[in-house]
């Protein structure tokens, strides 16, 4: 038996369903915090190892990034299994961050080929982090991410002018403002 209902009820139903689809925007703080801490540890330990004159000072990067990649893939598959709905935002985020990764590898490839100083490549990477968080912040309507992105761009410009070794500390600084602080705020917003 189909129940007919009036126009006011129609409006209520539409509004309720829109509210229902809004709640899942903040569940990706996990990835911000995971990668935030990994890049933070890698850049900080790389800086310290350079200072003490260790020959393989770059070693934290492949170890931590590879480990992070495995954890991300496993977490992504697990979350994918639980996810019952895909929004336009989800698709946009997937394309944004996959494009981010490809661009990151291109910058690292060019830098490793010796055609780019580490200062410039670190500045480009910081600017790229800024773009990723700026766009995410705009889509999620989450101001800390938008501000994090803008601050990251300022740090990227400043990175060109610091001594080469210290450009690593600029990466540490930018990851703190673009990933870690907004990541914890996002987590806090989710829990509250």
């Amino acid at each position, binding site marked *: 038996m*189909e*129940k*007919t*209902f009036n*126009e*006011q*009820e*129609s*409006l209520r*139903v*539409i509004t*309720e*369903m*829109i509210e*229902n*689809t809004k709640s899942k925007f903040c569940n990706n703080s996990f990835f911000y915090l995971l990668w935030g801490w990994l890049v933070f540890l890698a850049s900080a330990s790389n800086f310290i190892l350079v200072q003490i004159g260790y020959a393989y000072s770059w070693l934290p990067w492949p170890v931590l990034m590879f480990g992070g990649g495995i954890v991300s893939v496993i977490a992504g598959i697990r979350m994918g*299994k639980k996810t*019952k*709905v*895909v*929004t*336009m935002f*989800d*698709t946009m985020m997937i394309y944004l961050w996959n494009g981010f990764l490809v661009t990151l590898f291109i910058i690292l490839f060019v830098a490793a080929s010796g055609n780019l100083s580490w200062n410039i490549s670190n500045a480009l990477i910081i600017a790229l982090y800024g773009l990723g968080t700026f766009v995410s912040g705009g889509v999620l309507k989450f101001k800390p991410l938008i501000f994090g992105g803008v601050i990251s761009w300022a740090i990227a410009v400043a990175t060109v002018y610091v001594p080469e070794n210290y450009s690593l500390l600029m990466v540490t600084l930018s990851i703190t403002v673009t990933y870690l602080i907004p990541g914890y705020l996002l987590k806090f917003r989710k829990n509250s």
Partner: protein
Amino acid sequence: MFKQLDPLLHQQLRLQIVSLLMNVEKAEFNYLAEKTGATKGNISVQLTKLKDAGYIEIHKSFRNNYPLTTCNITPKGIEAFENYVAALKDYIGEKK
């Protein structure tokens, strides 16, 4: 003269389903059941009606050996929903 309210959308559960699908790219059957609170049998009937009208698409697949049904709204469904909202505005008198 009021516009006619689309009878296919002017029914609580079908309107719930289409409103949900308007906001997402695709949704699983269980998601629709969870959000609307309706019985699976009822949802199944309404999904078929919406599909027959060309408002939604239904895809059947498997995940971990369990059948998985996902739905998404079609351009025709989006147009019908927009027309429905416009007609609703007429009724409520918001339209200038």
